[in-house]
């Protein structure tokens, strides 16, 4: 049976990741003048792919590991175009653009979810 969660599809995960990325970007902006702070960001695409219903790897033995070890965590450091003298790698213009883009895409995900819910509601009411 198709669950409501399945109906919402990828958008619910996308929304969560966008919210997390907003928090990271806000942390970067908060630390814009802290010496030695290194700006961080989320690799949105690779994080989202973890939620895709991909094919599970087949194994011939139960002890075989079914997930490959990853070399890095979800949150990674940003490579600055020009590092400042105090070791801070936050570039405000970069962060602000990323933040604006992320907010816009969060709203897009929100709209997708809204449409899905509206569809469900009209199916339930049978109007």
């Amino acid at each position, binding site marked *: 049976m198709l669950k409501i969660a399945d109906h919402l599809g990828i958008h619910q995960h996308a929304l969560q990741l966008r919210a997390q990325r907003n*928090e*990271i970007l*806000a942390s970067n902006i908060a630390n814009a*003048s*802290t010496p030695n702070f290194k700006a961080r960001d989320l690799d949105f695409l690779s994080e989202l792919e973890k939620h895709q219903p991909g094919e599970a790897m087949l194994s011939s033995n139960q002890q075989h590991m079914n997930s490959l070890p990853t070399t890095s965590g979800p949150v990674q450091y940003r490579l600055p175009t020009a590092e400042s003298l105090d070791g801070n790698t936050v570039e405000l213009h970069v962060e602000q653009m990323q933040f604006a883009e992320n907010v816009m895409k969060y709203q897009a995900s929100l709209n997708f979810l809204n449409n899905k819910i509206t569809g469900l509601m009209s199916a339930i009411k049978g109007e």
Partner: protein
Amino acid sequence: MASSLSNIFDVSARAMSAQMMRLNTVASNLANARSTYTNKEDAYRAIKPVFTTVYADHAAKTGIASVDVESFVRVDREPTAEYRPDDPKADADGYVYAAAVDTDEEMVEMLDASRNYQNNIEVITTLKALMMRTINLGK
């Protein structure tokens, strides 16, 4: 440090209070910029805040971090001696010592602090609007 840093409001609020303390030091420094002293040792030296990052409990996973003022330091700069024999504060040789404050530097500091403060307000306003839209999801 077990920080109470859990959501976006904490991040921005802490950053804004840190920038506010920075603005306070700028105000104190500018207020004392023109004062003179008889002794070199008594002369006012500019106060500067030292910023440090505070991480949330699971910062490696969530990436949440904010900023705190770790301490305040006095600049390591000599007060300038001015020859003003008429000044009531002048010492035996006719010198007074002016506060070690660079007003140009303080103005730049003020602009940077107020801009950072505004950035944090902007972030929180945007995210608050998003949260309101998310609360009203499906209506």
